[in-house]
């Protein structure tokens, strides 16, 4: 076990703990039905959060996530119903548009040396505004394929259902883990977030990596939008307001360092599920306002930020300790 994995471990522990507490009070929460719903209800959030994980590890931030999701739902509603586009065409098309959009933001961030916060804030307004160009109404999607897709699920024991969109999320999370931890691209993302200057001196092409990271985030947001569209069967320009903040929260609770350079997709997944669990608990309780989710998430965020600071402090002290005592490896040196 590596010390770097400690935040991940803590997140998973918190998830288990929260689930145990919930189940202690409402034993019915410990069922495949609840697990299935948890995955389905948070599918879009989970997919978008994977993209956000890459962005934050690279040292950036993407505020356009929610707006891209909303634009996707509106685009699909209009394209499928008004324009009569086939879903087989509309789905790849919107993902392609989003990829270009994200790549554009990445290019601006890199070449114009503009803070990601500002660039993606502009992207958020652009994408949200573009929704209104298509339609200002909430448009229901009536395409028959939607019924087929949402009706598709694997049956879990105890009446639970593993829906298609939950599967999509699990697939995205798996691919995200592979991409981040087992490809050269993933290492470049960590390198960029660790120290951009050093990364460049080690031969990393920062521009290409930045562009790919934001393209990935926007592309995944579009997929999250497709999932959201399937989930709600509607396109609405005011949908998914503030989702970017929920994803950031999930990423941070998942053990990713907001300043970049450290983090895990699996942690983000756990972060999403923790948020979903709290929501589920509130539903079970029935008397609590759903705003309690926000309060608990806020408290969790504080706790994790504190944890990070403590870990950074301990790590610095440990490095100093090694320096003081002489590194073990160095000591063993033959003269």
């Amino acid at each position: 076990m590596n010390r770097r994995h400690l935040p991940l471990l803590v997140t998973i522990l918190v998830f288990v703990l929260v689930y145990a507490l919930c189940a202690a009070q409402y034993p019915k929460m410990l069922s495949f039905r609840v697990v299935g719903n948890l995955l389905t209800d948070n599918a879009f959030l989970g997919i978008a959060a994977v993209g956000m994980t890459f962005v934050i590890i690279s040292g950036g931030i993407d505020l356009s996530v929610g707006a891209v999701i909303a634009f996707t739902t509106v685009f699909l509603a209009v394209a499928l119903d008004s324009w009569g586009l086939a879903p087989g065409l509309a789905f790849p098309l919107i993902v392609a548009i989003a990829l270009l959009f994200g790549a554009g933001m990445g290019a601006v961030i890199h070449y114009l040396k503009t803070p990601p916060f500002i660039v993606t804030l502009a992207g958020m307004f652009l994408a949200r505004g573009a929704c209104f160009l298509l339609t200002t109404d909430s448009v229901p999607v009536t395409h028959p394929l939607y019924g087929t897709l949402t009706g598709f699920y694997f049956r879990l024991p105890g009446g639970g259902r593993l829906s298609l969109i939950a599967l999509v999320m699990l697939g995205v999370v798996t691919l995200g883990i592979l991409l981040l931890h087992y490809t050269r691209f993933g290492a470049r993302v960590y390198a960029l977030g660790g120290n951009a200057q050093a990364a460049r001196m080690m031969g990393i092409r920062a521009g290409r990596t930045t562009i790919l990271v934001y393209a990935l985030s926007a592309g995944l947001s579009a997929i999250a939008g497709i999932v959201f569209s399937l989930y709600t069967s509607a396109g609405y320009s005011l949908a998914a307001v503030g989702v970017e903040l929920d994803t950031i929260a999930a990423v941070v609770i998942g053990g990713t360092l907001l300043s970049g350079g450290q983090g895990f997709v699996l942690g983000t997944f756990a972060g999403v599920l923790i948020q979903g669990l709290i929501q589920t608990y509130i539903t079970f309780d029935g008397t609590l306002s759903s705003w309690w989710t926000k309060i608990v998430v806020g408290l969790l965020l504080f706790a994790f930020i504190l944890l990070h600071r403590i870990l950074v402090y301990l790590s610095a002290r440990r490095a100093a300790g090694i320096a003081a005592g002489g590194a073990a490896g160095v000591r063993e040196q033959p003269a």
Partner: protein
Amino acid sequence: MNSARQPALLDLRGIAKSFPGVHALSDVDFTLHKGEVHALLGENGAGKSTLIKVLTGIHRRDAGTMHLEGQPIDLHDPADAQRLGIGTVYQEVNLLPNLTVAENIYLGRQPTRLGFVDRRRMARDARALLAGYGLDIDVNAALGDFSVAVQQLVAIARAADLSARILILDEPTASLDAQEVATMFAMVRQLKAQGLGIVFVTHFLDQVYEIANRITVLRNGRLVGSHATADLPRLDLVRLMLGKELAEIESADHAHGPGRGGLCASFRDFGKRRYLAPFDLDIHEGEVIGIAGLLGSGRTETAKLIFGIERADRGEVLVDGASARLAAPRDAIALGFGFCPEDRKTEGIVGELSVRENIILALQARRGWIKPIPAAEQKRIAEEFVRRLDIRTTDIEKPIELLSGGNQQKALLARWLATNPRILILDEPTRGIDVGAHAEIIRLIRELCGRGMSLLVISSELDEITVYSDRVVVLADRRHVGELRAAEISPRSIMAAIAGTDAPVAQQERPA
């Protein structure tokens, strides 16, 4: 060293590089052979770093030729240098602390299988590579978890693995202790045995004599000599670096300051690990103590410890016989210390503020911000110092950045004089100012100590130090290596002390 018939590994001829207004390098030759450690030495502004940057493709040369194993080469960017087999390790570790050791070594060229990084193989390769240097560490741990020394070793291992022809080590040992340096040198010797050519830049002369086969000295952008280490005694090396002929050195005159007053402050066993070896120093009233040594020898470090900018981790300070606390510049100011830093642009003047405000700053800080100095009083103080130090300004309300370097320096001096310090530390007070102002500052130094103020003056100008010092503390390799008194003081004796020729050369102890 090497068979002379074979073309040199690297051969630079007539290299020149100018920046607007400066000839950073002119007509410099440099030859590096296989299996050689070649020390590149020189004081500030000698052109070492420019030459390194030409070598690593960061700067393009204006003139001259570069041959690598007999083939002409032309470097456009650092990637070119890397492709040709020229690797560099800098003083500041330029690796990624958040990645694992293995990832750092193989970043950009990780072994893959079916498009995915083969982490197991990468770890195995990294372990084998480091084991080759006798380094046994967990390659899957984050690099940042290790000491700077280990990080440097990993950086060297990466550079050597990546390039394997020429390795440039740009002050890699600056923050390592003796044992860590020994480990690094074992690695360097091994690479040397493998036939790499190694360029070694350092300020530590002991290290040069320990590991280098050859020494090239630059001064003011020119080549002043290239010798086999065995043929260049230390004193000659120091002479080459400082650029003094022994004949002219003898002639420099030394005039004594006034006699010493009582003991004012004394430092006992005062030092900081990895920063400066512990030293003892007594400061008497009305005394000028010169602090001499090569660049990086610990002169400024001494000043920063005494002024509390760096906190000493051992030893004690006695002021007027009583033990004093010295944990921050604030404490030092309260004890009546003043410090004019070397780099006045970044550490001294506040450019946008007026001459008056800059002069008043330290005095006001000592009084606390709650008790502002009345405007009339501020004006009086500022005008008095402008007159006394002959600061040339049309108006005391003029932003100080508009003044010439010499006048800025004098205003900075005025800032500390206004606090009426007992001990004033001047770090390179005459650097970058013209000759006239130079003489005036020296006159001021004499005058100040005449009035009972004690001065610690750091300077690279040996003639200058000889002229005004009652005592000279000599530093080398971050240690106080000698103290010269009155009649003993001459540029020659200072250089001898720096070179350590009157002390056993084999001394190996470094800041511990």
